[in-house]
């Protein structure tokens, strides 16, 4: 009898343990997962259309081609070349690290090293700053805590690390539990006031989650920028030679 009771107790204990939910992920662990999803592929090349919408509804459009190589343990490399409009066609931007960026000015046919302070500036007149297009990993620049969970989403509260020079001291990110893609962000200024908000639509392309559309709104100016990926290909084994000043100076072949 005592043996039967002991066995029942052990079984009950085992059931209790197995039924307990897995321990919740730490905010930093979730943020690392986000970085992993965003850098899952080896590299990518794609076309992007950027539409600027002012509060009167008037629009301006820019198109560009982007090459990117993803790294797990350091900043990604990227090359961006504008294809339209005409006054910025072939203007290029090479990023090898947060503090190693180059700008190609076709009007002067020169490549200029630009310092990381340029991250504060607006990217091509849009609501995205150069910082928003940074190739650095979120987890390198922010500490995250999970402020709440809303259905299938983690809501992360990111605080800028003391050593980081990112322009947003605080970011709130909505991260899908299922695939660790980011669907929404709120970006705050130094006074902890909401500065920008973004909505992101993610789709899978070649098995990789891709932010096919990013809608960034500067709430202080009621101005919106919509970035859409019109074409993207992954794992093309991009050569090192693409991520050089030499390539930056080449005329872009429009598609």
């Amino acid at each position, binding site marked *: 009898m005592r043996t039967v009771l002991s066995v029942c107790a052990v079984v009950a204990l085992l059931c209790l343990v197995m039924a307990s939910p897995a321990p919740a992920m730490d905010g930093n662990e979730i943020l690392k997962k986000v970085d992993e999803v965003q850098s899952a592929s080896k590299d990518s090349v794609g076309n992007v259309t950027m539409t*600027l919408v*002012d509060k009167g509804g008037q629009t*301006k*459009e820019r198109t560009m081609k982007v090459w990117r190589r993803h790294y797990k343990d350091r900043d990604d490399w990227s090359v961006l070349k504008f294809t339209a*409009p*005409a*006054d910025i*066609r072939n203007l290029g931007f090479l990023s090898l*690290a947060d*503090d*190693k960026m180059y700008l190609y000015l076709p009007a*002067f*046919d*020169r490549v*200029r*090293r*630009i*310092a*990381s*302070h*340029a991250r*504060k*500036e*607006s990217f*091509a*007149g*849009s*609501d995205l700053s150069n910082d928003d297009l940074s190739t650095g990993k979120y987890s390198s620049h922010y500490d995250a805590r999970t402020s709440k969970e809303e259905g299938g989403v983690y809501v992360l509260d990111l605080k800028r690390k003391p050593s980081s*020079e990112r*322009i947003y001291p605080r970011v709130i990110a909505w991260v899908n539990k299922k695939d660790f893609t980011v669907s929404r962000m709120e970006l705050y200024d*130094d006074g902890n006031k909401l500065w920008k908000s973004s909505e992101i639509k993610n789709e899978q392309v070649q098995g990789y989650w891709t932010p096919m559309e990013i809608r960034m709104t500067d709430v202080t*100016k009621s*101005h919106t920028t919509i970035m859409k990926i019109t074409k993207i290909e992954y794992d093309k084994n991009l050569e*090192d*030679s693409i*991520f*050089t000043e*030499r390539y930056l100076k*080449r*005329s872009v*072949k*429009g598609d």
Partner: protein
Amino acid sequence: MQRVTLPAWILCCTLLMLVCAPGLRAEDEAAFKVDLRGDIKFFGSAFTEDNPDDEFEPHEAGDYNLTRGELHLKLDGYISENVSYKSLLYFTYGVRQVPGDIEKLQVDEGGTAEADEMETEIKEASFTLMDFGAPGLDLTVGRQRARWGTSDEYNVIDNLNPVDFGNLYTFDPDYFVAHLPMDGFNLEYRLPTDTTLRVQAVYFFSFKPSTLPASFQARSTALMQDRLEDLTEGYGFPAGTAAIVLDDPPDYSVGDGPVGLRVSGNLLNMDWGLSYYHGYVSLPVVHRIESDIGIDTGATLTSYLDYPKLDVVGFDLAGEVESVGIWAEVGCYWPEDYRVRQTTRFLATTETKYVRLFDRPYYKYTVGFDYTFGLGNGLYWNTQFNHGYYDEFRYTAEAKEELGLGGAGFMGDLENYLASRIEYSFFNDELTAILDGLLEMPELSDISGNSAVVIKPKLIYKPYDNTSLELAYVLITGDRSTKYGAFDRKDVVYTLLKVHF
């Protein structure tokens, strides 16, 4: 049967061509795609105050300083994956259409009158062979600009292409320290093991001088005339004449083109470059002076100008410290041992003496930084200190004493400049406000008594994509003996309109 076969053959061939052509076109589509772009530009500047007594450019407020229209056409493309070409054509026309010459108003046999001046210039026409003979080796042949230096605006080691001084003092921002294109070879090799390490060798076919400011001859002759009058004052000779003559420029030959070699790379996150230039000084300097003094005829003074050889070893650096962008360049200038021969003939005597012109070597350098403050959309600040401008030399004390050279002014002695600029953009870069300033300091020990200041507030408005309107005021004040101080009372306001296509 035959009547049926021929049309059938024609039909089959036509169908075959129609089927295959898209495939052929698709393969070569990217290769043969031509990119034709350009812009139309209008620049106009006007004086803002009266200066009717100016010796060289008398004017009143509202008089145009310069009005000019330009059409630029750029044609780029790829012949194949590794062969690209680039061309840039400038059409420049003067806006003033009322000539001072009746003859130009008359219609010629072709039915047009020469009332409109236009110049055409091929600014660039080159092709590039990438991975030419080896991976990472690029060869660019043709008319081109080989720019050296990592400094933001003013580069002391950028000597391969001569400076366009003809436009420098028009205050047209597109021509600020513009360089003239040259024809030749430009070979660049990027080491496969290190994507940042590069070696570059440039050879331009022949020497090309800088263009000169509009009043260069008049001013130089006037200086010579003053000197002549100083020399002959009190002797009672009749008034003489002074002249400057271009004498024996470098030959149009293989050995007279400039050459350059540069190695560059990245170390500890700093871009660096080491360069060597061998060529000629691009500005004409005095080579010999001949004066003839006749009791009855008076004195004549003729200055013969030439282009001395020049070697420059340069070093440049760019990077950042605590997110502040920094850069520096230094050039060691080594002109040839150039002596000016002075010959004076008076009655039956001839006296000749030689004066060494340049100190050897001398140095030009620049240091600068830039930073964006996190105010609103970002307040950008750029500052640079320069020692020695493009047109300046280090003359010997003997040359200054004997020949009256040196001092401040065009082609004067090495001076110091502090240039600073702040920029702020509004309305998502639709409007940019810029405040530019320049302090010219011939002697650092005497800034308050001998200097010039240029202040240039500017607005750039881009109401639509591909259009820009720029409005600026150029205010100059300072000692009249300085380079920019000579423009005192020549303040201008200018407008620059541009449309890109």
